[in-house]
């Protein structure tokens, strides 16, 4: 099913949770709503589900206005952040709930219910746990029950609120792959909310980056990571060095030194802010490159992290150097080095909005 969100706004007292948000989710797509807390991603998801109501705008399911229909009638499968399993019911009863509460005329017979629930439990690979209570399950197992319960009503769309938020790192990775596979089997239009960029980039067909109640960028994982539309998106998707500079003829210049091999996108001349990923910052022997002084080196893991102060600038920058790099032995605290950016993304200092306040990562 295709979902169209049109100009949806929502406020809680003085807090603007959503500001004229528009978005289309295509049939069978898996879309991530990614953003820091307070960015409105969960509110958007709840508005789509019908658990919350937008103040303005509309939400269309396959072209039909769903705004006025009750969550009960929308046939959305909603997986709650903390699962919201019915704690006094067994796993089996939890999954069967949506079938048992159907109107008498539509309610399947007990045999059919049993059959359907067993099939679902098999699908989420917990068929042996049907008799347990939620309190007797691990976090990952509860997540699977919540999913099976949502799928039981044969929803037209699956909505997941921070589906892996409450799980530890290892289970999280495992469940992520499994959900990806499940989605490619079921082809069910799905939207999930996350604040974890890695999760969004790995799992989703398309990523919707949100900040302060607005959509900052929509694109495939590659698009949003490689071509962030705003400083906010750049900083939110991974580590970033911010270097205030000038742009002249499409080159990022600091103290008269062009320090980036590639500068994108093309913007007019004037003051700008250049964003450089740590792994794009290279230490070179070329003395014409930017001079810097090493302040700290962390050499654990596959890459060495080198913190440097750019000479004549307050800013500290961080570079990631392969452990195999020939320069590594010379990189000691206090050493004078020269750096160059392989790639810098520049945003005009005049046009760019201030960096997202507060919880932006």
């Amino acid at each position, binding site marked *: 099913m295709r979902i169209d969100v049109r100009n949806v706004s929502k406020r809680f007292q003085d807090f603007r949770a959503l500001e004229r948000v528009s978005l289309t989710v295509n049939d069978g797509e898996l879309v991530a709503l990614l953003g820091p807390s307070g960015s409105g991603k969960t509110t958007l998801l709840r508005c789509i589900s019908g658990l919350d109501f937008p103040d303005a705008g509309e939400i269309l399911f396959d072209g039909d206005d769903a705004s006025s229909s009750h969550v009960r009638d929308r046939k959305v499968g909603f997986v709650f952040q903390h699962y*919201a399993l019915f704690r006094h019911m067994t796993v089996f009863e939890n999954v069967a709930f*949506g079938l048992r*509460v159907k109107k008498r005329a539509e309610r399947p017979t007990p045999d059919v219910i049993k059959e359907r629930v067993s099939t679902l439990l098999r699908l989420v690979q917990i068929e042996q746990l049907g008799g347990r209570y939620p309190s007797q399950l691990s976090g990952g197992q509860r997540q699977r029950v919540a999913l099976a319960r949502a799928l039981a009503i044969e929803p037209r769309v699956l909505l997941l609120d921070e589906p892996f938020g409450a799980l530890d790192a290892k289970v999280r990775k495992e469940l992520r792959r499994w959900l990806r596979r499940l989605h490619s089997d079921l082809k069910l239009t799905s939207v999930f909310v996350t604040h974890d960029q890695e999760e969004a980039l790995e799992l989703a067909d398309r990523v919707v980056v949100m900040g302060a109640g607005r959509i900052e960028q929509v694109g495939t994982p590659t698009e949003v990571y490689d071509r962030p539309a705003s400083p906010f998106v750049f900083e939110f998707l991974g580590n970033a060095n911010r270097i205030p500079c000038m742009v002249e003829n499409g080159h990022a210049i600091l103290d008269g030194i062009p320090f980036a091999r590639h500068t994108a996108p093309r913007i007019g001349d004037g003051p700008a802010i250049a964003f450089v990923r740590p792994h794009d910052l290279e230490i070179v022997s070329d003395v014409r490159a930017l001079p810097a002084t090493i302040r700290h080196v962390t050499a654990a893991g596959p890459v060495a992290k080198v913190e440097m102060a750019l000479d004549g600038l307050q800013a500290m920058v961080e570079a990631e150097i392969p452990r195999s790099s020939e320069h590594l032995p010379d990189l000691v605290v206090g050493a004078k080095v020269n750096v160059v950016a392989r790639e810098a993304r520049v945003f005009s200092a005049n046009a760019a909005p201030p960096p997202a306040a507060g919880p932006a990562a």
Partner: protein
Amino acid sequence: MIASRGASSIAEPVVVRWILTLLALGFLAVFLCMPLAVLVHEALKKGIPAYLAAITTDDTLAAIRLTLLAAAIAVPANVVFGVAAAWAVAKFEFVGKSVLTTLIDLPFSVSPVIAGMVYVLMFGSSGWAGGPWLMDHGIKVLFATPAIVLATTFVTFPFVARELIPLMQEQGTEEELAAISLGASGWQTFFRVTLPNVRWGLLYGVLLCNARAMGEFGAVSVVSGHIRGKTNTVPLQVEVLFNDYNISASFAVASLLALLAVVTLVAKSVLDWQFARSRRRAAH
């Protein structure tokens, strides 16, 4: 013998522990155990047959019937109220919510005598709620069963709501929202999700409400009129017998109420334990 619960580094010396424990137990013995012991002693002083005779007189049996009737009306009425109030307060955000919860507790801070008096003001011979009219039409509200039921309802008013509101607030609305999103109707959600989750708390509230309903003295005393065999509840019957210097009969009837209290306490302890267990399960 008296072990400390915490680590030994923060425990009092053994002597202090003994002194404190004996002081506390002594206080409780004087104020809790001895009155109960006196009660049993006085009730059985004249032997079992006299005891049985005292609790089976016509007046006493009539009092028991009236007490049961009053509780049978007041308790369910307050359960319905408690559930409705808890649903509104715990599951929704609205203006004036804290005012409402304060008002629910109001009957607890009103003297039972005043609780009875308000109905005298309403339904007495010059009562403002149609007292004279009721008298003209021969409808007895005051000094009759209706006022006894009303007074009982007043004093037991907050019990169920008070138990349910914090419990339902703690449980939040996620499970209800999940049920609705799975297609359940409001009543289905309530009966299949909300109610099973608060069943122990509800039972707890009913238990306390019932104990108070059957044991209420002051409020009922004001509105009853003390007509023997007709408008005396069990606690009033205790008073009547006591004032007649029929002391052992009075204690015999009182022992029935004490038994109710002890049963209530035991059931409450069992529920406490049950509660702790289900809470541990939920927290797990």
